[in-house]
């Protein structure tokens, strides 16, 4: 069980990394892009906006945490 847990933790750390919200945000952004395309909107512009927001918010969390310490 410890081995399975370690294996799962390794892949989580490898793929998701330090901030899981970034990974969730990327998946949500892609789902929204696909939904808009399905509805007839060529939403190429959505993912760049998502990237700006995700990176900015992730950095903001670090800054806030550092200021609180």
């Amino acid at each position, binding site marked *: 069980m410890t081995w399975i847990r370690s294996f799962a933790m390794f892949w989580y750390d*490898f*793929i*998701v*990394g*330090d*901030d899981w919200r*970034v*990974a969730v945000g*990327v*998946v949500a952004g*892609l789902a929204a*892009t*696909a939904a808009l*395309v*399905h509805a007839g909107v*060529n*939403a*190429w512009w*959505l*993912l*760049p906006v998502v*990237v*700006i927001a*995700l*990176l*900015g918010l*992730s*950095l903001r969390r*670090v*800054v806030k945490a*550092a200021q609180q*310490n």
Partner: protein
Amino acid sequence: MTTFVLFITVFLACAVEAVEAVTIVLAAGTSRHWGSAIQGTAAALVVLTVIVAALGPAIGLLPLSALRLVVGALLLVFGLQWLRKAVLRGSGYKALHDETEAYAKEIAAAQAAGAGGRGVVRDWYAFTLSFKGVFLEGLEVAFIVVTFGNNQRDIPTAVLGAAAAVLAVTGVGLAVRAPLARVPENTMKFAVGTMLTAFGVFWSAEGAGATWPGSDAALLVLVPAVALLALGYTALLRRTGAPTTRPAAPAASAPVEGTR
């Protein structure tokens, strides 16, 4: 994407990871046993080669749109992780990676560990330390080789870029027999994070069904735009007053030195 861009992206990504792997192998070799450290390195390289050889053709069987969606999303998550760390280090919010310090810690841990071998391996600690270092650092590179190579339908160039980086870093590491502290790791990580993020955005949006204005030419806008975004965030964070070590570089330049 031209062959040159593919080569240089994989080369830089691989060089960053190779610097860290070489530091670990050097520590295992100099403080314990060179033969076992080299055996561990060779074993890890064989496992990584098997992974690339197995995953490469398997991923190549996927339809291009599915491949670009899944691989683009993964590259985007990877790229944002790399960029985030590079921005935090460049702005002083995270300590710069110090290869000399990492080397000293590995040496101390290796000297404290017990001796003993297994089978043809004379020093099991040196073997496992080298194996883990090379395998873990190499896994990310293997992923980049497979995904970039498959997306561009040009695995040989990606493999060539990775091999060139490993040979260059290993050659320098063996020549100086010391941690490669002067390699501008954070600048390289910044560049690779930019490329991974830009290509991740491009491919995953295409995989989700969107069509980029100007088709492939959109990358000529995306790559510099991502770099400017990260530089902008770095400058912004520096102005807020970082609590950790200040970087030596001027505010408007790319972050320098250190990763992870």
